[in-house]
């Protein structure tokens, strides 16, 4: 298989009123063509920052960033902004944003907003772009007349489908999905997940699936990477990570999932997520870790390989 996206030592710091916030620290992973990787972690752990870095739409208060993002072998953080806009943005990498309900301009028709990237890149008119939008809409299970609808006339599930259509309009190789189903009710969520699985199969699309719901990630992802407090703590094939979690955080996360069968009550992780302005020393999970020992406080664990899984925990050193 070919590596599509190679993230190397990505680090992103924001300047806030309270000081430097270390949102993403030394994150590395690879994504192969047509592969779906889940990026799992709790709110504020840096998942969306990674997505925004790939889209090159990080907010203005970034005060430090380093690392490489190799897409098809080329560092897309290093190329000039104009070239990124002309060759990569939306044409090769697109994104479905968190909160699709507000992702559409309330005063423009849905179809027009979906067609905009196409109209701009091919320099064609709205009349000419409409056919492509209609084709995509029918593929995603949206009635053709949805093109003429305004955002407030659509249900949450329809908006999410339209958002997907917008992300796919230039046939990208990689789509980043940031919490694509978190605002939807469970039955619509299932429909969208089935749609994503079909797209993955039929279009050979590579996806980064960002979610805080590890069971949802298990439904679609080939591989799963778990983030905690800006760091990648575990990375491996979905089957391995889900059936045999290595990192104490991943274990606790899976133990916190309620089960339909069996009488094991769901557990919880004591404490709260750390403040990323003053992250804990050593391993960032040590204040909440059930198997913490002395070295965890002073030594920042590197990524260890344990079988096919990579894990950032001193237990495996």
């Amino acid at each position, binding site marked *: 298989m070919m590596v599509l996206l190679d993230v190397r030592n990505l680090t992103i710091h924001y300047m806030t009123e309270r000081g430097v916030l270390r949102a993403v620290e030394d994150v590395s992973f690879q994504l192969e063509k047509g592969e779906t990787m889940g990026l799992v972690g709790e709110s504020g752990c840096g998942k969306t920052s990674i997505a925004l870095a790939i889209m090159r739409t990080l907010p203005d208060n970034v005060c430090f960033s380093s690392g490489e993002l190799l897409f098809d072998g080329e560092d897309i953080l290093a190329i000039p902004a104009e070239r990124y806009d002309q060759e990569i943005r939306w044409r090769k990498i697109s994104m479905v944003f968190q909160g699709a309900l507000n992702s*559409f*301009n309330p*005063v423009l028709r849905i179809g027009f907003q979906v067609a905009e*990237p196409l109209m701009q890149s091919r320099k064609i008119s709205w009349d000419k772009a409409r056919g492509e939008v209609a084709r995509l809409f029918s593929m995603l299970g949206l009635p053709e007349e949805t093109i003429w609808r305004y955002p407030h006339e659509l249900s949450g599930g329809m908006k999410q489908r339209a958002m997907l259509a917008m992300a796919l309009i230039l046939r990208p190789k990689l789509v980043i999905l940031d919490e694509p189903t978190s605002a939807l009710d469970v039955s619509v969520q299932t429909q969208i997940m089935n749609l994503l699985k079909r797209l993955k199969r039929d279009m050979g699309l590579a996806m980064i699936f960002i979610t805080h719901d590890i069971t949802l990630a298990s439904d679609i992802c080939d591989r799963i990477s778990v983030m905690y407090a800006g760091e990648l703590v575990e990375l491996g094939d979905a089957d391995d990570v889900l059936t045999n979690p290595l990192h104490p955080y991943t274990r606790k996360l899976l133990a916190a999932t309620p089960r339909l069968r069996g009488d094991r009550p769901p557990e919880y992780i004591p404490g709260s997520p750390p403040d990323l302005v003053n992250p804990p020393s050593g391993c960032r999970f040590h204040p909440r870790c059930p198997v913490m020992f002395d070295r965890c406080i002073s030594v920042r664990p590197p990524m260890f390989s344990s079988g096919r899984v990579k894990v950032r925990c001193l237990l495996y050193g």
Partner: protein
Amino acid sequence: MSLVRVLALKAVTLILVLFGVLMLVVLVLGATGVSDRILTAYVGEQLRAVRQELSQRIRDPVELERALETYRSELITAYGLDRPWYTRLPQMILRVLILDLGSSRTVTSFSGSSKVSDIILERLPNTVALVTTAVAISSAVGIALGARAALKAGSRYDRAVSLFSSVSFALPSWWMGLIYILAFSFYLGIFPFGGLYSTPPPTTPLERAADILWHATLPVLTLVTVILGGWAYISRTIVLNVTREDFVAVARAKGLKENLLMRRYIIRPAAPPIVTNIVFAISGSIGGAILTETVFNFPGMGRLYYEAITSFDENLVIALTYLYTLIYIASRFILEILYVVLDPRVRI
């Protein structure tokens, strides 16, 4: 079809508002006894004047008193004081409703007419020249300043606009007017102290127009100085709120060209609230600006309302109140129609 129904419904609601306002005027003037007291005072005043006149002709005191008594009862019937207010005032309202504004009691036009329509038609152009001009200038400049500040939020330009806005908003118009008079009229002597025309007024229409412009410059400048800041700040807030919307981030991520993005995703969604401000400000400007008109001795609608109230000119107060309500309702209806064009969410 449904659109027509929606607008018709709005129209009915607005007509109800109009009746509501007129009902309130009747209640305030009638139930509190103000109307009765005003009219009684008029009768007394007129009787005094007539007594002077009659005493020259009728020497016999008893005869004089009898004549005066007859005259008084005539006056009371004419003013409707013999009937309770709730039959008298609604009649007046009904007359006003068909735009028969009647005549004032004390306030007259400069040409001497006491017809309310004459008085208003004389003052209206002055106020439009002064306040409406100032509102037009302030809104155009203020929206441009505010929108630019919002697009560069946090920059030095933005902070300068914000500072200027709060200063401008805090300035009282009468004080600003006095300062301008002091600077430009008293020390520099390039603008008149006040009034509408030079004395004697120029004769040709062109010169007259130029003369009014020259006299209106300082009052317009005063109004612009004190209301520009509000416009800039409100527009800044509206546009800033839009720039923080998710859909702007999406449009940026999908690579929309910056000028398109600004037009379609920021200015366009921000338009409805800004247009609301413009329509209400323009229609409100017809009511005049009492303080500025007073400082510059400018005969406009604001001072007319003030004079009507202080001289207890009931007819004029009712006519003006009706007129302002009518203007408000008309502008509300214009807004409803504009919203249908600007905001798809109100189309049903």
